[in-house]
């Protein structure tokens, strides 16, 4: 049993000024307000430092676009078919991507990896721990979400070549048609041949997993929400770039679990990005949406996740809310909050010891632990 004492500790909901984090092996025992330490604990003095849970990046392609290899080697977009519900990000994930080492050394310990946004029905994402070892041990949650893509990207992939979808109407049509068919398949019990594509859609229809709807523009967000309502799917809006302009309308849809905002520090090279604003997560959070902040690596680097949250804070997001947006909120959205995202009894001992407040630019992740094992 180890007790880290003297640091300011962000538990996932609040800061404790002079707390103690107690871990045993790979688990958190508890976080104490005062130093009533267990007698058998090895005391580790981290006075003046800051401890947070290991950070969680709710939307990334890390490992799928190997750093330094070139785009020809990317496993990001299966842009051969607009409907690929059964492809899995984990099958394109390369654990030795150099970006992973840098990223976890910056305090990010859990990521959600997802196929890219070329296909209206893009495939399944997975939650991965950035720890050493076999791929199977890194997977925290397989088939954790079904990515759907709205707006420009599917149009730019297929439409420009004269293929369907050319318009937003066709994107919606493709998605609705697929769910209509899958609904029949899912309800049929006997004598059916297993179809992996239909099975993937069934996961969403049975609400085992949420749909992760890539949507920038306000109308795309609302399209995604309407479809989710029609098929009674639980939905998370990815990017949500114009979400801050549509809060009232978004509130009308009960199926929405939350929004994953970002990448915030991004050059708005597409039309649908023109209203990109650092204030987006602040406004969404003020309206009580559950907000996570993403890197969308490699579109902006995953290792700067604290900077993205810091910018959201600088532009008006409550400091605690901004911290939650890279810890407990993404853990909840990814359905892994029983294990990661906060420092609570029985959760995985994933935590970071920082030299300064993690939002300070000069702050260094001095020590990073995943399941009690120090990886930095």
């Amino acid at each position, binding site marked *: 049993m180890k007790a880290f004492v003297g640091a300011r500790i962000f538990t996932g909901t609040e800061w404790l000024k002079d707390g103690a984090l107690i871990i045993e092996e790979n688990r958190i025992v508890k976080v104490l307000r005062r130093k009533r330490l267990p007698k058998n604990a090895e005391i580790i003095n981290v006075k003046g430092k800051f401890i947070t849970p290991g950070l969680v990046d709710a939307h990334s392609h890390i490992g799928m676009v190997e750093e330094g290899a070139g*785009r020809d080697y990317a496993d990001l977009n299966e842009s051969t078919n607009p409907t690929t519900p059964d492809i899995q990000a984990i099958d394109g994930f390369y654990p030795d991507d150099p970006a992973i080492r840098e990223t976890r050394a910056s305090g990010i310990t859990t990521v959600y990896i997802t196929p890219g946004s070329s296909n209206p029905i893009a495939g399944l994402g997975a939650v991965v721990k950035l720890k050493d070892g076999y791929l199977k041990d890194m997977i925290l949650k397989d088939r954790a979400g079904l990515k759907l893509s709205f707006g420009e990207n599917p149009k730019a992939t297929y439409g420009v070549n004269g293929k369907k979808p050319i318009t937003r109407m066709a994107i919606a049509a493709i998605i609705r048609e697929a769910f209509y068919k899958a609904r029949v398949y899912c309800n049929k019990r006997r004598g059916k041949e297993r179809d992996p594509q239909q099975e993937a859609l069934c996961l969403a229809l049975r609400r085992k997993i949420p749909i992760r709807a890539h949507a920038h523009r306000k109308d795309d967000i609302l399209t995604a929400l309407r479809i989710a309502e029609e098929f009674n799917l639980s939905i998370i809006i990815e990017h949500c770039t114009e979400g801050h302009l549509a809060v009232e309308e978004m509130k009308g849809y009960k199926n929405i679990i939350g929004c994953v905002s970002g990448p915030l*520090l*991004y050059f*708005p090279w597409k039309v649908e990005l023109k209203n990109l604003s650092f204030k987006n997560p602040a406004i969404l959070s003020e309206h009580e949406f559950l907000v996570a902040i993403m890197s969308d690596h490699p579109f902006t680097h995953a290792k700067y996740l604290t900077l993205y949250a810091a910018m959201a804070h600088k532009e008006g997001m409550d400091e605690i809310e901004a911290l939650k947006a890279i810890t407990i909120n993404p853990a909840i959205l990814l359905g892994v909050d029983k294990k990661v995202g906060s420092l609570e009894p029985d959760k995985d001992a994933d935590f970071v010891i920082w030299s300064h407040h993690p939002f300070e630019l000069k702050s260094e992740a001095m020590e990073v632990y995943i399941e009690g094992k120090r990886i930095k």
Partner: protein
Amino acid sequence: MVIQNARILDFSNKKVVEGDIEITEGRIKRIAKGLKGNKIIDANGLFLMYGMIDPHTFLGIAEDGVGYREFDLNETSDIITPQMLPSYAIHPEDPAIKESASWGITTAIVMPGFSNIIAGAGTIIKTHGKSINDLFIKEPCCIKVNLTRTPIAYHQKDKLRTKMYAYAVLRKKLEETREYMKKSEKKRDNSKEDMKLLSMVLKGEIPLLVHVHRRDDIERVIALKEEFGFSLILSGCEEAHLIPSLLKEHNIPCILGPLMRADKDPETRNTTFRTCKVLEDHGVKFALSHAQSENPVKLLRFLAMYAHKAGLSKWGALKAIAQTGYEIFGLNDMGNIEEGKIANIVAFDKDPMDWKSKVVWTMIEGEIVQRGEI
């Protein structure tokens, strides 16, 4: 006009000075304490720094929010296009120009993109104005060359497969320019805009700005400079830290970056903020730029902060975003708050190297043009 009660970041003396600034006809006339004038701006303790310069942008030619099909960035119809002049494409209403000004960037250099071996000319603009005439400072300020693998990626179908050919094409064009220059004025074909522009380079009137990533390319380009005798600025230059002594020996300035780059290819895999400290230690002159990659131009200040975090001195970091860029392009009346310089001044509520700092106002040529970060 007098700005009173300012905390002035003086790059030359590397210190913060308390005082007042008198501005006449868009220039800094005097810096002293207790100055008076008929128009007063009370800075009330704000930190005043010289306006920043991003020396490698696509402002106005790769406009925010219009979509890449509207970009006037890469003239991919050919691999050699020195006659491309950004002033004919810069859209003054690109929101990024105004936003950059509001974040304290008062000057930018706009250049064509990365697709062509000779991409075109560089244009110096200020970040305030309704028309290109308002924005315009100088064109051409350089000719941009790309000796990365990006031109190959763009042209591999028909025009270019290897770097060997890229170098050969460039050399041939420079040889052609030499021949052109040998001809008497009467015999020269005056319609050849490309020859005229490249002559300016070979005569030493404007520098050749070469975008390279790898150290071997840096070496090859320096050899080319020796052979043809042009003045050279390197851009990109992500492996500069591997050969700092060579850069120092030949006195080559670098426009580093984008160092926050996420999407690293084989040529840029050694990108690191540590490069800045190595260059500082070796006395190599460098400026920082986002090269308008994944991050918007307005975030220039963050490059300085991360460079400082990776070991670059604080004043070295500030100079890299608000002084050296001017020096590299010979803009000698810009680059520090001191007497005689053009009054491009940014006021911050805190030390600009503090990530929480915000721009309160931006002054260009003695006029406050933006109030607060957009």
